[in-house]
């Protein structure tokens, strides 16, 4: 049983660093999501952990074993890991049972044990009736579960998942998210999960590492990442946040569009330009001036859309910054009117980067 640790991991292609000095320690039994837009280096990181790539610099340790370094890279087959691929990579010439038991046969287990383990995993993944089908005869969700079963049956120390749900439709995706988490909790291996979908990351992960440009931008629990974004990139990438830029007056006050906003989060430096993030649904919008004038700014409604459960506004602040605001559906203000926005101080997160 093992933790996974990356130390200064770097992978360069020519002069481009796909993964740039990444350090990350994943305790045994935790599920970590590498989250980021395409091209941020998350898949490269995963393939480095799997041993399909050799690092340009840095090291990967699994438990107390050094498995990757510039000098020596343990081949993937010697790492006692499992991986679920974006394409599932089910072997089309083998039945479901053959696919799933492949790893056990490589480990030269006896027939009886193999059959027992196969029956167990097929029951867990609800595939028992499909054991003799070929992958081409399965639906997308079933293929996904075969890939899961094949990866889990060998009882790996580490499970790697590369965008495992990106080929499924929305309903199945939701279902499989919880399935992956459930199986993780059941077997307790160390899991690294790569995805570009923030809600996928939120529902499955213990820890989320938001990656950008080959680096980890922020590492934290889903709550940390969502509520306490440290950078503009994370604030924009996770959830729907407005970014407001203004001039700092002191450590927790920002001058913006003719108003003074009290903010929390990182300490501001007086006189410097600074950015804060505030979520769309944290802003309250009203046609009349609120009684408490603190943290209120004026804006003009550019357009509004009724979305059923909510009403979505696009407004322009006095300095031209456009903001999105989500309100209750009954809160209707016509386009072109002037409105008052209240930005609660505890929701205005000053960004460190």
């Amino acid at each position, binding site marked *: 049983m093992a933790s996974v640790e990356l130390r200064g991991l770097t992978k360069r292609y020519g002069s481009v660093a796909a993964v740039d000095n990444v350090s990350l320690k994943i305790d045994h039994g935790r599920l970590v999501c590498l989250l980021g837009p395409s091209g941020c280096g998350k898949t490269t990181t995963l393939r480095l952990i*799997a*041993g*399909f790539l050799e690092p340009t610099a840095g090291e990967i340790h699994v438990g107390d074993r*050094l498995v990757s370094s510039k000098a*020596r*890279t*343990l*081949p*993937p*087959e*010697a*790492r*006692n*890991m*499992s*991986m679920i*691929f*974006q*394409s599932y*990579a*089910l*072997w*089309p*010439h083998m039945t479901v049972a053959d696919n799933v038991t*492949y*790893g056990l046969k*490589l*480990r030269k287990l006896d027939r009886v044990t193999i059959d027992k383990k196969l029956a167990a995993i097929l029951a867990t993944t609800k595939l028992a009736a499909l054991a003799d089908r070929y992958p081409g005869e399965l639906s997308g969700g079933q293929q996904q579960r075969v890939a899961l079963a*094949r*990866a889990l049956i*060998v009882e790996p120390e580490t499970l*790697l998942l590369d965008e495992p749900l990106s080929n499924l439709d929305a309903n199945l995706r939701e279902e499989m998210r919880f399935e992956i988490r459930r199986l993780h909790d059941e077997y307790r291996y160390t899991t690294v999960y790569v995805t570009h979908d923030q809600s996928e990351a939120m529902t499955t992960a213990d820890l989320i590492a938001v990656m950008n440009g080959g680096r980890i931008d922020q590492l934290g629990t889903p709550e940390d990442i969502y509520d306490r974004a440290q950078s503009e990139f994370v604030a924009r990438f996770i959830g729907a946040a407005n970014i407001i830029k203004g001039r700092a007056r002191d450590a927790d006050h920002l001058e913006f569009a003719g108003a003074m906003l009290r903010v929390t989060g990182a300490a501001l430096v007086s006189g410097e330009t600074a950015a804060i993030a505030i979520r769309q649904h944290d802003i309250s919008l009203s046609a009349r001036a609120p009684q408490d004038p603190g943290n209120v700014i004026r804006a003009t409604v550019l357009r509004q859309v009724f979305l059923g459960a909510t009403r979505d506004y696009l407004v322009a602040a006095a300095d031209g910054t456009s903001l999105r605001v989500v309100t209750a559906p009954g809160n209707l203000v016509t386009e072109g009117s002037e409105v008052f926005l209240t930005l609660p101080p505890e929701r205005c997160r000053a960004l460190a980067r």
Partner: protein
Amino acid sequence: MRRRIDITRPVLWLVALVLAVLILLPLSWLAVYSLTDKARHFTLQNFVTLFSDPDFLDPLLTTAIIAVTSAAICCVVAAPIGWLVSRSDMPGRQTIRALMTASFVTPPFLGAVAWELLAAPNSGLLNQLFRALTGAESDAHLFDIYSLPGVIFVISCYTFPFVFVLVANALDTMPGELEDASAILGAKAWTTARRITIPLALPALLAGALIAFLQAMTLFGSPAILALPAGFHTMTTKIWSLFQYPPKLELAAAAAVPLLVLTILLLQTQRALLGRRGYSVVGGKYGPPRRVELKGWRWVAMIFCLIVLLNPVFLPYLALLNAALSPNATTFVTPSTLTLHNVVFVFTELSATALVLKNTVILGTAAATIGTILALVIAYVTTRRLIAGSRILGLLATAPVAVPGIVLGVGLFLSYTRPPFVLYGTLWILLIAFLTINLPTAYQQLQAAFATIHPELEEASRILGATRLTSLWQITAPLLRTGVIATWCFIFIGVMRELSAAIVLFTSQTKVLSVLIYDLNESGDLAAIAVLGIAMLVITFAVVLAVNRIPMFGASAGARLRNS
């Protein structure tokens, strides 16, 4: 930690070296000979002779005429048929496609012999029929195949399938919505055809025309069989004649250079044309194209196609069958004169048959086996990008496409008649020739096969604990099996029908089937040719049919750009 012993690198370097020797050595000697005199001193005299002596200028001009007219005829005939088969509701479209494949795989030199049987001025079956029907004089004739138009006609017969395949494929893959979009905007059928369909198919047609041009330019068999009796030369027959006693190797090398240069240039153009065709499928999901209803013209269209196919398929095959079964190759067989004598003669009495069949089988098996393995390694390396410079390996493997058979023959002759490799007179030199000629197709086919196997399939095996070799054996090999078998078969067929390189490399002990057929034609033994030719066709069709059952390769058979 286990130290990884990587034997892949030395193996790959070895493959690269072998490839380089295979391709660069003959071309280098070709260059050296063309630029030197007998004493190997530098001179441009060979090229001066080539471009000033009427003995060479005439074949050059003849070749140009043949290539241009054949290409034009091919386009005019193949493009409408391609459209009818791909886009109309003409009856029997599948049959027409199958017949196209038949003319595609018929060795051109065999077609030329068959047309001798049909349209030689005196003995030709069609001319006999003409005299019988009209009561014309015994020296009158309708057709004379031993003429420039005759050569052009026969070459076109076996070249237009290339154009057909390219045009039909382009039309097959062209999304029907593109035409529908034009129609919905108000364009009439003809406007849509003129503004949308034809421009989209044009690159494929031009590429087809270039292939037809190349084919007509580099073909040896048909002009040798039809032009030499008529007393004129093409470049290929001229090169061949320079090998006859007394050999003029420097001139032969120089004469091969224009063929080589033109081929390379035209292939570059073709690649550019087809490369840009990518714009015909941009984004979105497309349905299959709608078929145009021909209404009353459906049957007219089919009859037109069948009449065209009379020339490369029906008439020649009937003529061969007739010659094989009649006591005299050039009389019409009747139930009373039907005889199996020719078959018995060829397989029991003709002394050359046994040797030639043995040579052909040995060479076919060896070339197919070695070629498949070589292509397999190169395709694996290039699709998986295992080493730096794998692209160069791929380029080397496809390079022989640009070397016409007879040019390669000349180069190999020059390379392997001297130390350190004295291979002339052995089967080795033919093996090298056949390997080189078939390598590009084999490589392209296997590369396509590898490309359909997602690398993650192998990686999934490795992460579960299998080594690279185990993964290759358990996962990749079973998935590739059909592709490998198909490639092997294609090389075997390719060896069987290759004439233009073999004709300058064979010796009396290393004759192959195609050369024997050519020899038998010289000695006028057309009945024996018919028997051998039919046997050859039967084997070829059996293999093609078997391979066409493998979906992956059904379409790419059209990628074969080789001539015989």
